[in-house]
Structure formats: C-alpha cells, structure tokens
C-alpha cells in the first residue's frame, strides 16, 4: 500500500527546495563537483575529434610521429578523465553521505523529543524505516542525481556543437533522428512506469495473499479449502506474471527501435556524409568522427529519463521524512518567556531541594482519547518519604496514574504537582531526574549488565554500580557469571530470566538514587527463591523515598504506609491493609481474588 502512495507525486518544488537546503553546508563541494562534471563531459568529447585528426592529418600522410603524438594526447585525455571523475565522484559522495548522516541524526534526535502518545500510535517498525530505508532512498539524489543532470545536458549540447562545427549540413541531417529518439524514450519510460506500477501493485497483492495464508493456514486446512485458495493464488500469480511479461514487451520493442534509429543515423551519415566526402567538403576522418558521435547520442538521453525516476523515489521518501520532522511534541517544557518569575523560583527551589518531595494529584481527570475517561477526579497526596501502594483490578487506571507523574501524558483536567509545583512548569529533564521508574515490562538495552544499570550516566562510578547490584541481591547470580557485571546483554535481554531482569531494573533505579520512586510491579511469576530475593531487594529500594507502588505482591502492599484502591478510574478506598480488610469493600474482594493465595507462600 505504501508503494502505491509512493508513486503519487513526481515532483514537488517545496519538497525539493527543502531537500536541497540540506546541501547548503556543502555548497563548495557541490560547486567544485559541478565544474568537474562539465570538464569531464568536455574530455569525453575529445576522442572522436582526435580520431579524425589522426586519420586526416597523419595516417593519410604517413606521419608516424604525428600519429604517436595524437595517441599520447588521447591517453592523456583518458588519464585526466579518470582522475577527475574519481575525484568528482568521491567528493560528491562525501557530501551526499554527510547530508544523509545529518538527516538520520536529525530524525533520531527528533524522535527522542516526541511525546509518549506518539509512540502509542506509530508502530516502531515504521519509524525505524524513516531513519533507515527512507533516508537511503535519497542516496542517488544527493550523490549523482543533482550534479550529473547538468553533465548529461552538457554532453548532449556539446556533441551537437562539435557536429555543427565539423559540418553543419550533415549535422542537421543526422539530428533528424533526435526528435524520434526523444519521443521513443519518453513514450517508453512512461509506459514502463505504468507497467511497473502494475507490477508493484500485483507483487503487493501476491505477497499480502501469501502472508495472509501463512497466518491462516490452519483455518484453510481445517476447512479443507486448500484447492480453492490455490486457485485464487494462481490467479494472482498469473496476473503478476502477465504484468511482468507486459513489461518484457516494452523492453523488447524499445531496445531494437533505438538500435534501428541509431542505424538510421549512421545510414544517413554514410549516404549524405559520403556524398559530402565525394564533394570534398568533408574529410574521411570527419565522417568517422560523425559515426562515433552518433553512437554517443543515446546514453545521455536515456540517463536523463533515469534521473526522473530517482527524483520520483526521493520525493516520496522525503515527504514521509518531513512529515515526521514536522510532528511537534505535545509535551513541551515551559518556554522561559511565558513563565513568570515566581513560578520560576518555585521550580528552582524544588529542583535544588534535597530529600523526598511530596507528590499531589489535584482533581485530576485524564483520557487517552477524547471522552474515554481513564482517570476521574483523582485527589491524592503522597507525603515526603511515604510509600503508597496503588491497587486495583485490571484496567482500573493504575499505570496511567504513574505515567502522569513523569509527564508522559498531560492531564485534561486538574493538576499534577511535584514538590508543590505543577509538572507542566518543570523543566522536563529536571522533573524526570527526580524520579526513578521501574516498569512492569523491563526493557534492557544491548550492552552489559553494568551499562544497563548505569544507563550511560558517566557520573556513576563502578563501585556505585556494584554496590547497587549487591543491594538488590544480584550478587548471587553475578557470581555464577565469569565476567560478572561486564557480562554482555543481548538485544532486549533475551538471555536473562524474568527475575533477573527485575533485579537489574531495581539496581538501575537504586543507583540513580531518585527522590521519588515509581514502581510498577511485574506480574510475571518467578520461582520461590527468586521471589524472596525480589522482596528483599524491594525493601532496599523503598527506603527513604517518596514511593508510589503499583503493587501485585501482598508483601509489598503490607509494607506500604497507605493503600489506595483505584476502581474504574476513581479512588474508592484509602487505608492500611487491616483497615481496608475490615471495611469489606473493593479491597476485600481484590484481596480474595489476587492476594490471598500469596499468604500460603506461593507466588501468584
């Protein structure tokens, strides 16, 4: 489907200008490159002229020294062409690759700025393509497209100029085929483009069909529909083959027609030019040069239409890239000009203050889309140093509550306050540095265990990492690893068990020593031994911080100062474990449903 979109636009001036702007820092290279291309094109024209001189002035007169001079001159021209071409290609590629590296850098940096909700809507795979494939599609535009277009035009004009200079009458006669050559090429390219579009759509349909059948193969087999599906497949397969065979037809006609046209040009030169030789107005060498030039006509014409396709591909990719770059983050830190000074000092004070700050939800309501309220009228204050356990049934809004504190999303109503200041007034980085977040689904980066704990914060010493690791009971496992903390972690921590991953994420939070801790307990079950390790590690983590724990462990809940029961987006009960049990309300039922089994000592 994306491919089909891609074929929509051929040329868009606005996009082109924006693309070329990326070349601006490399202006000098582009200018030099352009000059070189013109020089190289001129050198390419030298060959037939030298041949003419050799035939007319030296071979005809038996001048061996002269012929050798011409040959050496010819070699010199070739060497110059080789050196200049190499240099030109090299510098132009350097500029092109730099531009693409710049673009990738910009896109990646932009992605880092975008808000959480953006990633909920856009699949990771698609965003990765923006950085990789889409940028690569611009390769040819920057490295060869822009500059060689001038070279091709210059070549054509140059050939025509030389021919006119040699014999303008014969030149005009041989130009007779040019309009036809142009026309044939244009028609062919247009046809081929149409057929390719057809081929591409059909390839897409064929692939979609195979994909769907692979996924649904058991259904096909259970209902005994293999034969019918095969027939449908064969039909698509046939259409695909037909489209390709149609494209063969175009090529099969095009190449011979071009061949015939260039033969007509040669025939015209032989007949009319031969006549001019007989008249004595053209030399034999001149005739040979004419024949050689006429063979050079086709290349630039064909290349020019090739460039057209490059342009088209670049337009489609750049449109997608720019669309991403134009997406603004919905979560923006306050700009200095709009913040009044009293708020500013309050924020500064909050940033500088040591110790655990208070956290407050002030009449907060929140929905991911429009009116689908996930949280409603939440009023909740967590005192400095307090541990609050948030419990509730699936879909009660627990994780959302945590996301609002670190400003992954902005509330629609009310305020979220950290250290007495609205999170929207905080500098985002400063706000998030106050927090340590342990998510339910532990994300590990490829690197080592140590790098996953430290997360690139160079201020954290090796000792601190080791201390944190041992504080969360990682030692026992690390001792079994020959490389200890330096053990490599593969992509997404595939080699680690669920329990190990949890402990690593605890160490990560601990070593950053946050003043507020948000912990979304993992629900994945671990063995009893690991469970004990995790419980102990949790105790170390909750020490002396303001903590909000989305709890799944009874032990965690019992340790909390207060339990907040969230039900259908509202705070329904608040109290200690014993208080809430005696109330016999929602918590009582949740306890029966989720936590009671854990009292027997077996993890849920």
């Amino acid at each position, binding site marked *: 489907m994306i491919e089909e979109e891609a074929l929509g636009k051929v040329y868009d001036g606005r996009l082109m200008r924006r693309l070329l702007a990326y070349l601006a820092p490399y202006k000098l290279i582009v200018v030099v490159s352009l000059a070189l291309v013109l020089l190289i094109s001129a050198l390419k024209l030298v060959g037939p002229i030298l041949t003419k001189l050799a035939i007319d002035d030296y071979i005809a007169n038996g001048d061996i020294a002269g012929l050798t001079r011409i040959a050496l001159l010819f070699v010199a021209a070739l060497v110059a062409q080789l050196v200049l071409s190499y240099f030109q290609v090299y510098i132009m590629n350097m500029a092109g690759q730099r531009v693409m590296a710049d673009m990738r850098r910009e896109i990646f940096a932009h992605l880092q700025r975008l808000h959480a909700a953006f*990633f909920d809507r856009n699949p990771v795979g698609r965003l990765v393509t923006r950085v990789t494939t889409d940028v690569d599609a611009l390769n040819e535009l920057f490295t060869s497209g822009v500059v060689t277009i001038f070279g091709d035009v210059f070549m054509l004009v140059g050939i025509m100029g030389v021919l006119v200079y040699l014999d303008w009458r014969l030149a005009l006669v041989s130009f007779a085929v040019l309009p036809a050559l142009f026309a044939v090429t244009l028609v062919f390219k247009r046809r081929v483009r149409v057929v390719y579009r057809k081929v591409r759509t059909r390839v897409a349909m064929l692939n979609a069909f195979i994909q769907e059948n692979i996924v649904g193969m058991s259904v096909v087999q259970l209902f005994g529909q293999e034969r019918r599906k095969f027939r449908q497949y064969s039909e698509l397969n046939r259409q695909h083959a037909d489209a390709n065979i149609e494209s063969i037809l175009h090529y099969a006609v095009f190449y011979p027609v071009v061949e015939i046209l260039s033969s007509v040009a040669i025939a015209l030169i032989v007949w009319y030019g031969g006549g001019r030789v007989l008249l004595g107005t053209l030399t034999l060498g001149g005739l040979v040069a004419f024949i050689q030039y006429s063979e050079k006509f086709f290349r630039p014409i064909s290349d020019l239409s090739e460039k057209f396709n490059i342009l088209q591909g670049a337009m489609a990719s750049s449109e997608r890239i720019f669309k991403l770059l134009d997406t603004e983050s919905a979560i923006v830190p306050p700009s200095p000009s709009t913040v009044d000074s009293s708020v500013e000092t309050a924020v500064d004070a909050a940033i500088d203050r040591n110790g655990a700050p208070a956290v407050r939800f002030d009449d907060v309501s929140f929905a991911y889309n429009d009116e689908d309220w996930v949280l409603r009228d939440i009023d909740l204050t967590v005192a400095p140093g307090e541990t609050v356990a948030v419990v509730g049934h699936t879909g009660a809004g627990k994780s959302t509550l945590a996301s609002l504190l670190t400003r992954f999303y902005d509330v629609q109503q009310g305020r979220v306050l950290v250290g007495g200041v609205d999170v929207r007034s905080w500098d985002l980085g400063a706000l998030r540095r106050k927090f340590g977040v342990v998510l339910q689904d532990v994300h590990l980066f490829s690197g080592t265990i140590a790098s996953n704990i430290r997360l690139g914060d160079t201020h954290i010493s090796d000792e601190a990492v080791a201390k944190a690791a041992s504080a969360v009971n990682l030692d026992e496992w690390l001792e079994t690893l020959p490389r200890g903390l330096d053990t490599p972690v593969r992509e997404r921590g595939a080699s680690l068990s669920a329990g190990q991953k949890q402990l690593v994420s605890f160490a990560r939070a601990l070593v950053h020593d946050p003043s507020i801790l948000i912990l979304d307990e993992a629900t994945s079950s671990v063995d009893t031994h690991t469970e004990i390790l995790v419980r102990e590690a949790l105790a170390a983590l909750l020490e002396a911080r303001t903590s909000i724990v989305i709890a799944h462990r009874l032990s965690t809940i019992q340790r909390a100062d207060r339990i907040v029961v969230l039900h259908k987006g509202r705070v329904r009960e608040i109290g200690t474990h014993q208080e809430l049990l005696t109330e016999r309300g929602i918590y009582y039922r949740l306890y029966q449903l989720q936590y009671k089994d854990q009292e027997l000592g077996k993890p849920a």
Partner: protein
Amino acid sequence: MRELLRLVPYLKRYPRPMTFGMVALVLAKAAAVLTPQVLKWTIDDLAVSVTIDKLLYYAGLIVAIAVFQGFFRFWMRRLLIGVSRHVEYDLRGDFFAQLQRMSPSFFNQWRTGDLMSRASSDVSAVRMVLGPGIMYPAETVIVTLGALLFMVSISWELTLVAVAIMPVVSFVVMRFGSVIHKRFESIQEKMSDVSALVQENLAGMRVVKAYSQEQRQKEKFNVENDEYFNRQMRLVKVWGAFHPLLAALIGLGTVLVLWWGGLMVMSERITLGELVAFFAYVNLLTWPMVALGWVVNIYQRGSASMKRLSVILDVEPELPSTAPAGTLPAQPAPLSGRIEFRSVGFSYNGGGNGDRVLRGIDLVIEPGQTVAFVGRTGSGKSTLTRLVPRLYDVTEGTVLVDGEDVKALPLHRLRRSIGYVPQDSFLFSETVGGNIAFGNPSASQEMIDHATALAGLNSDVEEFPKRFETMVGERGITLSGGQRQRATIARAVLIDPPILILDDVLSAVDTETEERILSQLSNVMESRTTLLVSHRISTVRNADLICVLEDGQIRERGNHDELVELDGLYASLHKKQLLERELEQI
C-alpha cells in the same frame, strides 16, 4: 551452483520458447557483427571512388541489418525472458502448494517474515538466473565469436592488440566486483546495527525518557551513524574508481587500435575502412566484458537463494495427507462424532518428558455431548482440542473418532466433520459473507443468514455498509474482537459439522452477550458433539461434562454442581469469578 540444477526440469517444460529464443539470439547477434563490415566497404570505397547510388545501397544495407537484428532481438527477449517469468510462476506455485501441505508445527518453527522473504526476494533472485543469467552469457559468446572471426580475417595482429585489453577489463570487473561486494556487505551490516539501535531505542522509549537518557542515546546513535558514513566512504573509495577505470581501459583499447592500426594503414597492411571496422568491433566487445561481473553476481545470488528455497521445498509434510491439495472429493460422508482420548500424551517438540503439555488423558465423549475444558493459561486445554482435527498429532496414546484412530481416517473426511473455531479468530480479507461461507463457497444465502443468526452476528451485519458484501480488513471495515469471534463461529456452524470445537471463542464479548450467543447456540450444540474451552465458568456451567486441567492432566471432572460440591480447583475458580462479577458491578 549445484543448487541451480534443480531448475533444469522447470526449463524443460518450455522447450519451444527456449529453442526459438536461442535461435533468435544467434541470428540477432550474427547480424550485429555485420554492420562494421558495411562501414568498412563504405570507407574503403570512399577512399578510392564511389557513386552516390552505391552509398545509398550501403546506407540501405545498414538499416536493413538493423531491422533484421531488431526483429530477432525482439523475439530473443520476449521468448527467453518470457520463459524466466513462466518458470517463476511455476516456482511460486510450487512454493505455495508446499506451504499448504505444511502442518501448524512447521509454521510455529518458521517466522512468517522469513517465509515471506523466501517467497518474494529469493524467487526473484532465482528468476534473474533464468532470464538475464542465460541471455547475457549466450549473447557474449555469440558476439565474441562473430567479432573475432571478422577481426582475425582482417588482421590477426591487430586483433591481438585489440583484445589485449579485454582480460584486463575482465580482471578489473571481477576484482572490483568482489571488493565492492565485501564492502557493500559491511555497509549492510552496519545498517542493521543502526536499525537495531533505533528499534531498541523506540521500544524502550519510556525508560529512555524516565531516566532522561535522550542525550546519551543520541551520542550512541551518532557513533553508529558516523561509522555507517565511514563504511559508505570506504565503498566509495573503490566504487568511485570502478566506472572511470573501466571507461579509461576501454578508451585505452581504442587508442591502441588507433595507433597500431594507424601504423598498419600507413604501411598499407590494412585499409582505413578495416581500421574503422575494428573500432566498431572493439565497441561491440566491451559491453559483454563489463556485463560479465554482473552475471557472476546474478549466479552467486541465485544459487544462494535457490538453496534457501530448497530448504522449504524439501520439507516432508508431517501429516501424510491421503488427498493432496487439488484432488479433494466433494462431499465425504460425515462422521457421527464419538470422540475418545486413550492415554494421550503430547509435547510440542515431540518426546521428552519435561515439556509434555498433556499426559495420561483418558476421556470418552459420546455423540451429542457437550464437554467443557477449563484451567489456567498453559494447562493444556486448547492443545487437547487441537489433537482432534489433527492440527497436531499425539506423541503418546491415540485419539479416536467414531472408534477409529484419527491417523487412519482420511484427513479431509475428518476435518469436514469438525467445525473448529480457533482462539485467534482469524478472518481472510474478503467479504463478510465470503468468510462465513469459507468452508462451503456454494452455500446459499439462507444458509449464510442462518449461520450468522446462530452466531449472533446478524444485527451487526445489518449495520455494515454493504452487509454481507462488506470487505473485512484494510480495504473494508475493521471488525471488533467480538465480531470477529462471532464471524468465526458462524463460519464453523455453516458447514453443519457433527463435531463443534470452540476454543475460548467468546472472551472478547461481555458476559451478557456471551450468554445470549450461547443460548442461541444451544440448539446447535444439542445435536452435535461439542468441545468447549473457556476461562469463564459462566460459559461452561451448562456443559454435560466439565474437565479441569492442570499441568496437562485432567484433575477434576463432573458437572457444575458436582464440581462446586467437590470444593477443589473448579470451586475456587468459581468463587473468584463471582468476586470479579461483584467488582464489575460496584
């Protein structure tokens, strides 16, 4: 290269286009070699004296040769490249048919993306061998032979001078080809590193943000990005020299011919016309030399791809199907629906004791009975039902239907008798009606209406923009989870099977809707053997028999009241669901 031999039988299916294509190729290329001859005559005649009519004759000859050559080139391309497209069609068909023979365990083992890349890019790479991979080398041989023949007939000495450069050209093409290939691969590798880094970064965006790691991530990215740039430039260093060098070498060949040939003309050992003809021959020979590197590349890629295709094509189907795809008899006699499990054990990777999903299952289900299976995720309840239609084969014991081992029953007869509704409620991107009538494409509208009503989807269908003609999926409407589930129920009910298997199919609708659908289905279920898998007590409470599975074994069996009485696993599950219901209502 040996892998490619597998393609010979495919080519043999098209003897006529292959033969005529080759004949056309020989004629076209033979004609191409003639034009320089005409040039030779022209120049030589002009050097002496000639009439304008003779020139016109030569001009006509040049055009005539071009037309002749063009005609055969047209057929050469059409026929030879056409064959490659036909073989591609056959190959794609065989590949798909092979997939259709594979059992679910095959699809568990192979990732969809992997199979897709074999079905698309590998088939294309193989096609390149059959098309350009045959045509270009053949052209090279004919042109080289023809050109050399004429060249030697003019002067073997100048021929040696002219071809002296050719081995160098070939060497450069090969040498550069392999270096470029290596450096290109190192670029690809780096690109996949960059891509993995971005992927990881985006997947872990919340951690990145929560720990304010944006700056650090950017630095990490820039390191990889710069390395990618460096590798690109390493390629440019070689690749940038490739084409200029080729042009220079070919040019050098021309200069050598001009110089040596010029000397020969002066000493009157050849004529000027012959020298000009030589230029043309050198020109004819260079392109095939340049193409050589490309052709080698086509063969390398093609044989690697053929290997990847063979891996799939050579997999033996796990379940010997009595009727291969394409030869199904129309309507096998239905079974009555008595199902028996006799000390059944199963593990997904065949054997091994530790990972057995099912063990020691003994169960008899009489025709018309409704049996429900409950238990935690991973207890084996879904797996048990999958053994009946032979989506998987037992690793121990026997599954019998109508007293016969399912392995002994013709597969199509067995499956025809089972209406299976899988967990994932998969629908095809065709119309709603087409999906419901999937098992019986010739079903009447009444049958479709009836099945739809039984599944409780009728009122939904009325609201679809084109009712039964509405497309499902990207090109039509997106059905909700509950609608999809009900559509798959309708699909199963439509074939009127004696056995109905519902694998946790009403999880996406609320309890109220579920009860409504179940009561509608009760008529259908009454007259046939029904296997019901569910998490919900409300779904299974009316079943004739309820089996509670844990760790692959049936731990409790009985009807609802008996099991509640027993106060075991079922009873605790029942209690919890009552609590959940209460919570729902608070």
